[in-house]
């Protein structure tokens, strides 16, 4: 062994994320971790368990439930909660619809945009001082300027022109009651880093992430699996394809890609060679406008 004391890039990313978790636990009251069952939130939770070892994760996880989930994801979520002995809080979009706080455009419409209201309510009701989110800066332009500790006012809003400077590894999580800090421990990870880490650490994911055979339809040049949310319309042809998912969003808008990558190793290879961003490829909701993400973040979205 050489005595150069070098860390590999993944070790360094891991160390930085662990540092962030500990910093929040030490300085901010009542943190919570946003857990969707998507790979980023799974990696984030995995890092949290490593940060506090041998103690349990010292905060609850919250699932903002659109009510339009892949069954596999909910099953997976409950299994993880069991495995780590976590406290799970479910903030349900359906509750907000039922209470008239938000309105569905039409029954079965995508609920991604509605999530923001539910998320903010969940934060308020649980008095979270900090909420961990799995967003990465490489995902999207507006995110590239996001801080690791992102200050949100009492309306949950993000003000890109008024962000706190963030220097060295000194994080300022001070806030008043009602305000909160969104914390992004995966800020500096790329999609490839995430997958390489999943492979190296053998982290379990919902099975949908790996190639399997599905009945699909093609819409707007994206593939959607036929299930209770995606009902083939007239003139749409259903065909069988070997596919996998690159993200886990609302089941009505999350598409899959044709792929034969059935193992983490194969996915790493595929991602390394990919020529489309994961959001561009499979998230209908981000295609709405060029500034889609920026507008949503200002409203309080992650």
């Amino acid at each position: 062994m050489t005595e150069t004391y070098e860390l590999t890039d993944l070790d360094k990313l891991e160390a930085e994320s662990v540092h962030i978790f500990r910093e929040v636990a030490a300085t901010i009251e009542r943190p919570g971790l946003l857990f969707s069952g998507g790979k980023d939130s799974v990696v984030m939770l995995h890092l949290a368990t490593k940060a506090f070892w041998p103690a349990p994760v010292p905060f609850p996880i919250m699932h903002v439930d659109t009510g339009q989930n892949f069954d596999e994801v909910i099953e997976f979520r409950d299994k993880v909660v069991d495995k780590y002995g976590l406290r799970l809080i479910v903030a349900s979009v359906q509750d907000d619809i039922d209470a008239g706080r938000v309105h569905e455009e039409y029954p079965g419409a995508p609920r991604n945009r509605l999530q923001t209201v539910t998320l903010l309510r969940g934060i308020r009701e649980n008095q979270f001082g900090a909420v961990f989110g799995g967003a990465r800066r490489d995902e999207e332009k507006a995110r590239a300027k996001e801080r690791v500790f992102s200050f949100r006012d009492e309306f949950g809003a993000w003000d890109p022109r008024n962000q706190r400077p963030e220097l060295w590894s000194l994080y300022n999580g001070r806030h008043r009651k009602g305000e909160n800090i969104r914390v992004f421990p995966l800020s500096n990870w790329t999609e490839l880093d995430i997958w390489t880490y999943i492979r190296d650490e053998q982290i379990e994911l919902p099975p949908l992430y790996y190639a399997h055979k599905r009945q699909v339809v093609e819409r707007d040049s994206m593939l959607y699996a036929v299930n209770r949310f995606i009902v083939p319309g007239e003139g749409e042809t259903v065909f069988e394809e070997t596919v996998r998912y690159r993200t886990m969003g609302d089941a009505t808008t999350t598409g899959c890609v044709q792929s034969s990558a059935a193992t983490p190793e194969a996915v790493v290879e595929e991602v390394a060679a990919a020529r489309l961003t994961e959001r561009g490829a499979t998230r209908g909701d981000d295609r709405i406008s060029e500034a889609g993400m920026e507008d949503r973040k200002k409203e309080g979205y992650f």
Partner: protein
Amino acid sequence: MASQLLRIATAGSVDDGKSTLIGRLLYDSKAIFEDQLESVSATSQARGHAAPDLALLTDGLRAEREQGITIDVAYRYFATPKRKFIIADTPGHIQYTRNMVTGASTADAALILIDARNGVLEQSRRHAFLASLLGIPHLIMCINKMDLVDYSQDRFEEIRTEFRRFATKLEVGDLSFIPVSALAGDNVVSVSENMAWYEGTSLLHHLEDLHVASDRNLIDARFPVQYVIRPHQSTDAVLHDFRGYAGTVAGGVFRPDDDVTILPSGFSTKVKAVWGPGGTPLKEGFADQAVTLELTDQIDIARGDMICRPANRPHSAQDIDAMIAWMDERSSLTPGATYTIQHTTRSTRASIKDLEYRLDINTLHRDEAATGLALNEIGRVRLRTQQPLQFDPYRRNRETGSFILVDEATNNTVAAGMILGPSLRESNVVWHGGAVNREQRATSGLTVWLTGLSGSGKSTVAVELERRLVAAGRPAYLLDGDNLRHGLNSDLGFSAEHRAENVRRVGEVAKLMADAGVVAIVSLVSPYRADRDRARTAHEEAGLPFLEVFMDTPLEVCEERDPKGMYAKARAGEITGFTGIDDPYEAPQSPDLLLRPTDGDAAALAAVVLERIDRLEGNV
């Protein structure tokens, strides 16, 4: 060997081609996805450009798109088979000094653009200065738009020479120059045929090969305690007693069995185990690693404490000199103001005692008449903190030498600070005769004289007192009567005459130390009043403070303790002339401080002495 991370901060004046260069790096290293490229092509076409404008790839928020400028730090990611890169892309205008400082704070390398047609401009110098202020070890000057100067070697050399001359004023570890054309791609990813005269490597190769592992401080072991892990799991006996100190190693290496000292308490113990995240047992934890340390002794340790090696400690001080970059647009730094200071994992309050000068970051001129620092201004200040900070100068360690100031009213981060060192005392004194007088010394001294019977507990209190003073950053030295008899006073016995000489010598040594700025702690039976008074007089004549502390432990108690078995021997008649048995102890009639064993343990008694010192020095 798996790949390593390289963090780069970029800066350039508007239109020097920074966005184009970054776009080129991303594009040529295939970090650009097709959908991103398509969106850029569409926008370029809409704006009437023939080819896709690579600069658009790195362009972020809508406000910026509309104004056509970059307003904040944006982070970009790309990787080659050799390395993963994170670019902190910062705007170059003076108005955005704040952003460049932010991006530079974590960078391993700075990439600064110069337009070959314009040469070294004021802003190029400013960018280089900021890079050096923030301690970025590697500075890479990209002379861009070489295509517009006919790829001229002369022009390149001219710019290089001029910049080198300026750079001698800066602290730059590693400076390199690369002629490129961001637009055409010359020397960006591969070496250009258009500049055969250039013998160096392409920018990308240069970045891939940059050696940064030794830029960290691997010598001074520093571990700011971040979080205490106590599982409290009653079901598991081992876990129940587990107490781990979690944090990120800020310098050096920690191994199991290492002797360590905890600051500010000054207690020492050993490392029992070093754990990586998730409980991987480690043979060593080194700088940048997030670890959990287990220690052999149960010591009260909290977040904000600093673990180091006993013989290699950081500075501990409350008066600190630092460079400050002001980052708030709604307020400015003014002497006298108080802020929350975040340094390593410690938060305390700091007030600005003095603004020594404001630095013109274009000319490096020092304006000593300045009365404040506004947004994007940089200056040198003297701070006083409520609790002592354990720090190293920023030049020596970026982790333990940096801090931020937070406005207590708005909770905003208002300043970034780089510590120069402990403040020397305010020295607006007149120098005379070339000799240093006492006021000019960094610290002021005094003598604490502990007198009392053998076994009264003087030494225990003295040891504790010394430890605490040193931990608080104050030079202190223990003069122990028993130990001095082995050296300085080895020629002396226990006759009244020799006892008097013994006390005189110790008194003189203490006086010299106090004069030199040290707290001399004397632990000496010194049974005769007249001898002690002589020592006091010697100090008073020299204008040095002298505190007589009487350790008033009853003889029966001392005799019962009898730590060295001397009382037993004296009673048995094996030794004669033993103080308290067959030689008198003349107790002080009006000591400056009287300590009784019933007042508390050694730590409590030492605290009483410290308080007395504070009162003497008018600090409370």
